[in-house]
Structure formats: C-alpha cells, structure tokens
C-alpha cells in the first residue's frame, strides 16, 4: 500500500512490449495453436487428432491424419473435458507443432518428408530423443483450461523443462488470455470450443476459479445434432466424406447422388474413427455455411405475441443450399438450420436418440453464465456483464453472439449487457493464443516466468505457486 503511493502508473501511450522471442502454445480439443509471441496469428495450427498405424506409430499433422492409410485409426490427445488425455502423445504432438513450422531444428527433414508424400509419416517419434532440445532457446507460454487439475499443470512444466529444455515457462489460463486479446483485464469470457463451452470470470487478469463453469454443448455437440438431423430427415441425408469419393457428377437438389466410391481392399480399410473424423470435417463445413442461431425474439420453442409458434415463423425465413462431397445437395430450411444448435440454448429443443440423450438445461449457455455469476462476488457482477467476451471457433455460428446478447438482456434486465466478439474470424478462432502472444511479449511479464533455475530448485510444484 505504502509502496504504491510512491510510484506513478505507466503513461497511457508508453510501449509495454519487450519481446524475447517466446513461444506460445495453445492446445485445444480440435487443434493446437503455436507461434511466436508478439505475432498476431499462430504460425502453426495442427490438429489435436493423430493417426495411429497398426504398428503403434503415431503420426501428426493435417497431411497424415486425413490420408486414408490402411487400418489407420484416429485418436485425440485431448479428452472431452478439455484436459490432456494422453500426455506422452500430446507432448510429441505439440513438439511437432512447434518444431515443424517455428523452430528450425527439423526443417530440412520436413521438406523431404512432408507435403507431397502423404504416405510418409511426418515425424518419427524415435528421432525426437536424439534431437537436441526443441525449444531450448525460447521461453514457452502454455495455455490451459480454467479447470485444469494440479497434476496436469505439473506435467506441463515437466514436459516443457525436461523434454523441451525451455529456459523459462509459464502456464496461463486460456480464459484470461482471451480477455487480454479483447483488451480487457476484467471480463466474463465465454469460450465456445470443440468439446466445451466454458465461462470464466476474470478480474484484474486473474481467473476467479469458483466462477468457472463448463458444459459439453459446444462444437462437437452441434456436430452430433447435425448428424441426428441428417439421419432423422425424410429421406435421410447421406453423409459421405470426401475420401470415399473417387468421382461424382452433378445432380438436382434432393436427387440421389451420382458418385463412384473408392474401395479399399478387405483388411486395409481405415478404422471407423477415421471416417468419423472425416465426417466431422464435412459437418464443420455445414456449420460454417448453413447452421444459424434463431434470431429471436425468445427461443425457437416459444411463440410470437400473435400466437404463431416460432417454428412456424421460421418457415418463412430463407433456407440455405448445401452440397455433400458426393454431389447430393439440398436447400436446408431455416427451421432445420436453427434447430441444429438450438440445444445450446434450450435443452428441450435438442435432437435426441439412444446415443445422444437430451442435455440438461443447466448446461445451456445462458444458464451457465448465470451459474458463473452466482459464484462470484456481487460487486463485480454488473461489471462482468458489461464486459463479456465471446471467443472460440464454435462461436462463429451465424447469429450466435446476437442471440446470446438478446437472451442475456432478457435474463438480466437491470444490467447493461455488452458483448465483445472479435469481428475477424482469425481473432475469434485464436483468441486465447493471441492473448498469450500479447502477454508473453510484455516487458512486465518477464518477472513472471518460471525459470529453469527455479524449476530445478523447487520442482514441478512451483507451477502452483507462480501460475495463479
């Protein structure tokens, strides 16, 4: 207290940056983003999915996991709750993300190995140990979800220090970083990713842990909803991923697809998980172009003042055409477009079947926000509502942010609701990485790093003390 009085705050236009070529690594369920701090986009974006060959080799990178090799199966290093499922593979996948495009250690090898020859593995795990430390010269900032468990955090610093040899390390919450990327030290961050929606209240650049809530009604949930929509449609919509198509010809809307499919010799087909991943890519396309949020007022299940149900009103809204990889195409009605994601807001509108039970209402976005607000101090709630940040690729669904805004305004009529959602797709997709890039290039952040010396002195437990 006494100390603060003697120092004047920094000038408004004083440049706070002091770049030290730190690396920023932001692992997510769908992709892991890596790049140098101070840049505005991650140079390296690698899927978190990896391919396993029958000989238990793990291969990484877009080129290898999307090539239908015999008996190839697809796994993800992350678990559905957003934390790391398989640390060993995760470490090598991330290392691949860093070394393949950022640090030059393996550059030569990649050029001979990578892009043109899909049959080859992008990286050989066995080599890794013999190589010199991949990030030996760069400080490394890694992100983690707000609910990351203590042992996972320790594991992260162990990997960074022991296997990668980084001189300095820091572990930051991705919610905090997303709020930094929006230029806010305090915010309520709504991160709609692949596996999770998470709400993180941030105050003074610190995560309020008790206010962190999450639910699985995110990108993958929407994918499953689309699958259900396709299978329950009359007639069912065929979902054939790209890799199965060898040729196709144009057909009329709704007509049977005219395509010849690839055949794999028996025993050499890819694992079903491969097909699932490929289907997901088609579904992501569908999400990008067709799926939209019901624009309101109210919920899709509600009705307008004149007694007409919103589902009926939606019939007059424009549809959108979509063409499947096999040439099948159709105009999707507005009601269907809205329906695919209405479950994010309204549990009873979610499409269900045996495998996909109905979600509970408390997992829906607005209810999550309410839960989060209820677990933080009363004094800052109004401030948080006035500083909401929407981030994550899942939030790119058309009309999603304005729907959140509307529902929040209805839920908190007495507070001023303001949502910050980056206008550019890149900033929305890489929100937490960009925040990390900002943070790691700040001069004042230099004192936050956990140095190798400190790690050696205190062990992995230091991450709990320092990365708060």
């Amino acid at each position, binding site marked *: 207290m006494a100390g603060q009085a003697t120092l004047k705050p920094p000038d408004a236009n004083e440049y706070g940056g002091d770049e030290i070529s730190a690396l920023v690594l932001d692992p997510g369920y769908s992709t892991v983003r890596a790049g140098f701090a101070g840049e505005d986009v991650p140079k390296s974006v690698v899927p978190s999915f990896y391919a396993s060959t029958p000989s238990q080799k793990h291969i990484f990178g877009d080129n290898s996991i999307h090539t239908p090799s015999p008996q190839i199966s697809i796994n993800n290093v992350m678990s559905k709750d957003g934390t790391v499922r398989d640390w060993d593979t995760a470490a090598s996948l991330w290392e691949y993300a860093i070394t393949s495009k950022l640090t030059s250690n393996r550059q030569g090898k990649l050029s001979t190995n990578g892009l043109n020859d899909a049959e080859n593995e992008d990286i050989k795990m066995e080599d890794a140990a013999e190589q010199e430390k991949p990030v030996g010269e760069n400080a490394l900032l890694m992100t983690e979800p707000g609910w990351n468990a203590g042992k996972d955090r320790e594991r992260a610093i162990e990997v960074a220090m022991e296997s990668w040899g980084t001189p300095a390390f820091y572990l930051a919450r991705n919610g905090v970083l997303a709020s930094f990327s929006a230029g806010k030290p305090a915010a309520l961050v709504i991160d709609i990713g692949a596996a999770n929606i998470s709400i993180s209240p941030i105050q003074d650049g610190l995560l309020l842990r008790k206010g962190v809530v999450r639910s699985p009604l995110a990108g993958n949930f929407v994918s499953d909803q689309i699958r259900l929509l396709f299978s329950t449609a009359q007639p069912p919509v065929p979902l054939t991923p790209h890799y199965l198509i060898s040729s196709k010809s144009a057909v009329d809307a709704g007509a049977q697809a005219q395509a010849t499919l690839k055949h794999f010799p028996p025993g050499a087909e890819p694992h079903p998980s491969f097909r699932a991943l490929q289907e997901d890519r088609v579904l992501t396309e569908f999400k990008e172009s067709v799926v939209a949020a019901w624009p309101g007022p109210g919920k899709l299940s509600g009705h307008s003042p004149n007694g007409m149900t919103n589902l009926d009103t939606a019939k007059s809204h424009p549809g959108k055409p979509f063409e499947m990889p096999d040439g099948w195409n159709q105009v999707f009605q507005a009601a269907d477009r809205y329906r695919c994601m209405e479950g994010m807001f309204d549990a009873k509108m979610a499409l269900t079947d045996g495998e996909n039970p109905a979600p509970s209402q408390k997992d829906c976005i607005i209810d999550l926000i309410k839960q989060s607000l209820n677990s933080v101090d*009363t004094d800052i709630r109004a401030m948080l509502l006035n500083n909401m940040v929407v981030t994550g690729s899942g939030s790119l669904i058309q009309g999603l942010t304005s729907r959140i805004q509307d529902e929040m305004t209805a839920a908190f009529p007495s507070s001023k609701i303001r949502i910050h959602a980056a206008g550019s797709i890149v900033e929305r997709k890489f929100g937490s990485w960009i925040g990390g890039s900002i943070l790691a290039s700040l001069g004042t952040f230099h004192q936050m790093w956990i140095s190798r010396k400190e790690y050696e002195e205190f062990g992995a437990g230091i991450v709990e003390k320092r990365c*708060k």
Partner: protein
Amino acid sequence: MMGSDARDMMGLPSAVPTPKPTLPKAPKPKMKGGMAREVLDLNFEGAPPISIVAPKFKEKPKIPFKPRRWEQTPFMNSARKDGLVLRHWKREGDAAPNVAGLPVTPADSNAASEMDTDDRPAANIEDSRAAKWNVRIDRPRYSAEEYDTHLKNADWSKEETDYLVDLAIEFDLRWVVIIDRYDFRPQPKSEPSEDAMAIDTPTPHPKPRTMEDLKSRYYAVAAKCMALRTPLSSMNPTEFEEHEKMTKFDPRKETVRKQYVEKLFLRTPEEAHEEELLLKELSRIVLNQEKLYEDRRALYDRLEAPRAINPAAAHASTTVYQSSQGLQQLMQTMMQSQRLRDAEKREKRRSALGVDTETANSHSSSAADLRTGGGGGGGGGRSSMGSASAGGGGGHEKRQPHPTPQHRHFNQAERVRFGISYPQERLTSGVQFRHERVVKASQAKSAVQTTRINDALAELGIPSRLLMPTNRVVTEYERLVEGVKQLVEIRKMREKVDGEIKIWEAQRRLANGDGADEVDDQTAGESAATNAQSEQAKDEGASKEAEPKEGENGEDASKVENKEDDDEEEADEAARTKAEEKVEDEDETEHLENSRLEVEEDVKDEDEDGDGEGSNASQAVEEEDEDEEDDDDEEEEGEGEAEAEAEGEDEEQSDDEDDDDEGENEDERAEVEKDGNAVNSSENQVDDNNEDGENEDPEAEANEANEPDDGSSTRARSMRKRSASVISAVSNKSTKRQKK
C-alpha cells in the same frame, strides 16, 4: 507483306517506306551539309526516330550515418531474484540504460542454452525497463509474541491468520480474487496453497468465511501492526488516514450494502422500468427546480424578502431548513416581515384617511424600527417612500375622478334580501352566483381529496345540493367544508409523516445492523402500518377540528377560512418531512390568530371607509369588476387568490402613489407579474409530480432527492402568496390605467 501491302489492300497511295512514318520529325532541318534528308536518315545522324527514355530511379538517399545493426542482447529483470537472463533485439550501439542491481553469482546458471555462459561475466547486464513497475505492498508483520498479546481472536487461529495475510499480500488485496482462492485447511500438512488448487477435493473442516470476514480480520491485523510499528501519535497524515480506514471497516455495513447490490442486480424488468421512469421524473423535477430557484430569486429581489438565505446557492442553503429548527426560524422571519407589512399597510391606509391614532403611530414606528434592523437596505428605503407619499394623500385623489355610478342603490335590507354584496375584495371578475360557491367549496385540488370531503359531508348528512342556499347558509356551508378540508389535509399529512418516520426508523435499524432480513418485512409492512396510522390520524384530527371553528362568527370566519384554504392548498403538496409537519401545525395556529386579527381590523377599516369616501371606492371597484371580465389572469387565479387580492388592493394605494413619482415602475411590475406566474406554473408542475408519487408508493417519497424540494417549500408557500398579491396589484393598476 509489310506496310506497303497493307496500303495496297486499303487502296492508299504507296508512300515512301520510312521506318517510322508516324513519328513527327518537324524540328529537323531539311538539308544538312548539302546532303539529302534521306541520306541523313540512313546515317541515323540526326535525332533518332524513337527517343529512348532510360528508366530513371529515385536517387538513393544519402544518409549521413551508417545503419546500425540490430542484435539480440541479453538482459535481466531486477524484479526477479533468480537472475534469469532473457534476450531481446536491440540496436547495436544502444547502451544499456540501466543496469541490473542484483548480485550475479555463479549459482545463477539457469538455462540450458549458452545464453548464460557467455553472459556470466557481464555483471553490468542491462536491467529490464519494466522492472520499475514491480510494486508490492508491505506485509503486516508480527512476531509470535505480538500475535499472542495483541492479535488473538477466538475465531481465528494464528495459522489461518498467517494464511490470510499471505494470500492478501499475494493478490495485492484484490479481495474478489482472495475470497475466490481462499481455501484454508485447519491442519495443513504442507503449504496450504498447494492443495488449494484441487477444487474438487472436499475440505476437512474449513470455517466458512465471507469476504467481509476476511477483510475485517486482515484490516484489524494490519491496523494493529501499523500502530505497533508507529504509534498513532507519530503517524504522518497519510498513514493515519490509512489506519483510520482500516479500523473503521464495518463488516456488517458491507454485508448490508452487498445485499442491496444483490437486490439491485435481481430487479425484474418491471422494477427496472419503473426505476427508469422515476429517474426520468427526478431529473425533470431537478430541472424544474433550477427554474424554480431562478424565479424565486428574482422574486426575492423584488419582494424584500428576508435575505436569510443566499439565493445563488439555494441548493446548498436549503439544507439549513431541513431541520425543524431551521424551518421554524425561517417561518418566524417570514411571519414577522409579513406582520410588519400588514401593519404598515394598515398604517398607510389610516394615514391616508386622516385617521391617526396613538396606537397606529406606535405600531408603525416599532415596525419601522424592526424593519430597518432585520430587513435589507432596499426594503427600508421603499417603505419610507411609501409612507412619505401616503402623507400626500394621493390615494384620495385617485378615487375622485371616477364618474358617478349609474346603478341603482340598494339599502342594507335589500342587499340581504337579494343576496347582493359589493365585496371589497374581488373574488372573480363579474357576477358570482351562490351555487358556484357551493360547488367550488367542496372541491379540493385532487380527486381523492374531493371524494373524501364529499364522504365526510355525506356522513354529516348534508346534501351535496343545498336545499336553501341563502347567503347565510352558503356561508355556513363554506365554513363547514373548509373545516372538513382542513381535517382531510391534516390526516393526509399525518399519514405521510408516519410513513416517513417508519422509513427512517427502518433505515436506522438497518444501519445499526439488525440484519437485512428485515428489509423485506419492513417495506412490506410499511403500507399496512401507514393505513393503521391514518385511522388514528382521523380521530385526532376530529378533536382538532373544534379549535379553529370556535370563537368565529359569520363572515369573519369565512374570510379566515378562505385564507386557510389558500394556505392549505399549498401545504397540501409542500410538506414532506417530519420536521416540517411540526412547523406546519404551529404555523397554522399562528396564522389563524394572525388572520383573525387582520380581518377584524380590515372590517374596521372598511366601516370607516364606508362612512366617508369609502362608497366611492367600493363603486370604483365594482366598475372595475365589470370592465375586467376578459382579464385572463384574474380568472385563472381563481378563488384562492381572493384574499390575496384584497391585500393587493391595500397595497395598490401605495403603489399608485409610487407611480405618481416614478412612472417607469410600470414595466418592472409587469415583470414581477410574469415571474409570479412562472413560479405558479412551475410549482404546479412539481405539485403534480408529488401527487403522483404519493398515490403510488410512500417509499418513493423517502427518496432523498426530494428533500431539497421540501426544504424550501415553506418558503415557497409564503413567497407564492406574496407574489399573488403583487400580481393582483399590478393587474388592478393596469386596468385602471386603461380606463384612464
């Protein structure tokens, strides 16, 4: 197959095939050195047919210095204790502006890279310029003994206190974060913060702590430590202030405040909307208030009001009158000046009529004394001028030029019989019928009041349409209705004040920390309580009723009550606070006596008038009445102003006399009139607002923002009365002028 072929095809005459026939060669001389042009062309010695423009680039700027290289330079941050060396890009020659002040020991090896090996000897390695922002707050320190002697607390173990202080310092007293991370385990095996991470693991027996608990404990500890280090007496002002702040922290108040915040946060849309409306209304009132103050100030300037308040700072100064004492004081000042003025007027009239009694003399002299003592200089000057000209008997001359009336004269008996009166005060312009009086009497300003009055009349068994509306009956009826009105008013005030007392008490109780659980009950029960109280008020009012009625007879009484009516109508909207209510009561009784006195004297005066030129005067008034039928102002003022007008007429005399001396006064007066109207209208607006609020919800009145309005209402009331008299005086005079 060149140009010639094309020419053939197009039928053009074949020309000499020059290489570039289109290019102009005009400036070339026909012959050079005797050679044919063709030959010269062949030699290409002339200007070339195509001018080849060599591409010219911008000249390379000549910079006076050699560009410096950028290089990665190592640096440290003195905020770090481990001597971590990082590298950033720097211009080659830039000297390190500051040097890390930390001792670099050989043990400082940190990175696997070479960066520290070659930097090792550089003890003067650059320090990060961000290091200066590394600010930490001082930790309150206490030894174990100090803790035992000063800081013991039954609720807090030393371990937990240590943990709290550590956490508070770690998060720089960001309490929102501290309470979020607070996770103390009674028997921590190792570092308490270590297992703080695992959110899901259940805590053994943690005491539930609120942010207020943490704050109050920390502040108590910190304040004590501060006092132990520097005794209170030797603290510097900032330290002392800090210490004060910490010791003054009241967790209960904070809790209550938070509950309010929570409630505010959980408002329903309707509540939010209502609040918005109220806020809008408030801003409108405040806006009007500004105008009101403005007008009032103008009036003060003209009306020689007591300069007790500084009108320029009316806002601030009204606080003086928000206490009952202040109000009473104000009331007394105003009453006194009013009395003085009345006395003066009477005196003037008397002297004008040539009646000069001993009592009047002594009265006026004492009044003058008081006046110069208490009033402003300007006021004194004016009064003396008035009395001086009064001596000239200007008032007489004014009335004489009136032509003799063409009306039939009625004697006293006839007047009574036909119910004709020549009122000395003009009630309205033109003829007034009794049934109008009857209807008017039973109408109050608000519909609610009107129905209440009618209810009361019905209870008394008096028909709303009088059976025999003779003059006396109507007068009696008016008197009765006035009494009822007064009662109803008193009852209303009583209810209001009770409601407010409740609210204040509730607030005081809350402030004392009786817990906010009661907040709900209180507000809910409030209206019920007020209702109960209002019943009581009714009863009490009934006993009061007797007072004003007794000892008054006939016309006098009706006059008195006319005046009361005027007062009451304004009081209706004005008073809000308890303090005011008190003053109000006193004011009423005082007024009653006062006006009774006045009326009696007035009557005496009139009698005297009637003997002499009085008849002339009254006829003049009558004529005026007829002439003025179109006068809007008069009609709008209505009955309420009747009394005031009578007063105004008194004043008129002196005004006229003034006029004789200084003719320009006219304009000034007109202005006053305008101001007066403005005041009236804006006040009416405010009144309306109040009335709305009152019907809706008694709590709204407790709104602090209303208070400045209330504080000045008493002042406003008497001001308004005065302004009314000025208006009537001016309008009277102007019509007279027209006639002239």
